[in-house]
């Protein structure tokens, strides 16, 4: 998972370009327009750097926090093979965080600072992980449908302009295919099982539908700001476009299993080719992302606990001649 980020659209577009050398800016934009990647040591506008750090860092945090709700279920996963698979998946997610922190680091923010900002609530992560995985079926729905949403996002972003981020995403996407199949397999097993198992997976789907609809973020206000980020290939598609792709691909697969989606309005309009649905509660989305969700506090406390507990080992290993170097690629 989980590349959804919430780029702030409040700044005036003009401020994105303020103080930039017009010639360098033109060369930079020409390179992107020609489909070339930007590498860490290239000249780039300050706003490009800032947005990418924010975006990649949030993505990394989402991976590392995303490991928590599912990690809870490792000891209780039904059967040895599922335990192994879930452990492998959770390890992958933490591995994704490592790849992404490194990509963000090439832009000049240290990993220590990113982790501090996560723990102190200064930077965000995907909102869906502020909800608990109440039953085993919740982990199945997460692995299948949240990862599915994330894959759409990550495949889209892997065509962006920043080299290190694209490379990390390509590796991540190839690992995600296992998560998706694993999650689907678990959902199918429950949905075709006993009436009790079916009920459990239906209830999990009901609980997760709103977070899933929240996943790609609120509809973008199309502004000059968004246009510039799209021109720079930082933002590769609108949130609504990604949600649309998700619905196109996965709603039929959910219906294939005879499961119901808790939205009476949900249907594809044959004329427009677009999905019609009830807007999820965006006020709740805002409230939760700003800290007031069922698990926000616990997630960050657990991260802080882990970091503080390991501090003595990490500090003991710092050598006198250690010197921080921004990684190359």
């Amino acid at each position, binding site marked *: 998972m989980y590349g959804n980020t919430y780029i702030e659209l409040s700044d005036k577009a003009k401020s994105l370009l303020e103080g930039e050398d017009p010639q360098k800016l033109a060369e930079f934009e020409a390179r992107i327009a020609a489909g070339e990647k930007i590498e860490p*040591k290239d000249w780039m506008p300050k706003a490009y750097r800032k947005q990418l750090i924010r975006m990649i860092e949030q993505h990394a945090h989402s991976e590392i926090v995303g490991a928590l709700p599912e990690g809870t279920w490792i000891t209780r996963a039904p059967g040895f093979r599922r335990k192994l698979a879930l452990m492998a998946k959770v390890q992958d997610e933490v591995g994704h965080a490592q*790849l992404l922190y490194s990509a963000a680091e090439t832009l000049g923010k240290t990993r220590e600072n990113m982790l501090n900002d996560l723990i102190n609530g200064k930077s965000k992560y995907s909102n869906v992980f502020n909800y608990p995985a109440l039953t085993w079926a919740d982990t199945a729905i997460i692995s299948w449908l949240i990862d599915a949403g994330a894959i759409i996002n990550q495949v889209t972003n892997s065509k962006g302009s920043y080299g290190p981020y694209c*490379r990390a995403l390509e590796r991540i996407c190839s690992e995600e295919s296992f998560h998706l199949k694993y999650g689907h397999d678990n959902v199918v097993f429950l949905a075709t099982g006993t009436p009790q198992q079916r009920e459990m997976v239906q209830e999990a789907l009901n609980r997760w539908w709103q977070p899933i609809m929240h996943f790609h973020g609120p509809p973008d206000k199309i502004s000059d700001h968004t246009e510039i980020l799209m021109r720079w290939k930082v933002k590769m598609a609108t949130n609504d476009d990604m949600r649309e792709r998700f619905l196109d691909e996965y709603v039929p697969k959910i219906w294939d299993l005879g499961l119901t989606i808790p939205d009476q309005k949900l249907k594809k309009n044959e004329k427009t080719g677009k999905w019609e649905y009830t807007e999820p509660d965006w006020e709740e989305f805002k409230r939760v992302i700003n800290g007031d969700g069922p698990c926000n506090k616990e997630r960050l406390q657990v991260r*802080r606990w882990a970091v503080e507990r390991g501090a003595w080992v990490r500090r003991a290993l710092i050598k006198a001649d250690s010197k921080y170097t921004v990684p190359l690629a």
Partner: protein
Amino acid sequence: MKKSIDPRINRLDLPENKDGKEILHALEEWETYEVFHQKKRGDQHIHTGIVHAANPELALIMAKEAFGRRRQTANLWVVRSKDVTASLYEDADIFLTTPEKTYREASDYYCMDRIRKYQQEHGIKDRKEDRRKKKESD
């Protein structure tokens, strides 16, 4: 604190986390290493990413987890990022003339026309001509 659904978490003495304290100090995540991955014996080692580690031995362990966990791997190298000297992209124009150096390419050398012309002028038999005729008559 609200009870977690994870009993392991309920057993921990979790910190309040309200003080905005800087939890990680500078260098606490150590130095950065560039990782090179060889898929199988005989292949090139290819740069594949970055790890943080306190020393090269630990960097190899991190690299094994991060890059050898899923893919076929024969061998890994780790090199401190600070020990890598790289050329600059701004200087990439030093490579621009490379495609012009056709005299480096085998395909740029053809002299059969000259040979044939000389042979015709001097009555030297073309070996290949004979072979072609033989083939046709067979």
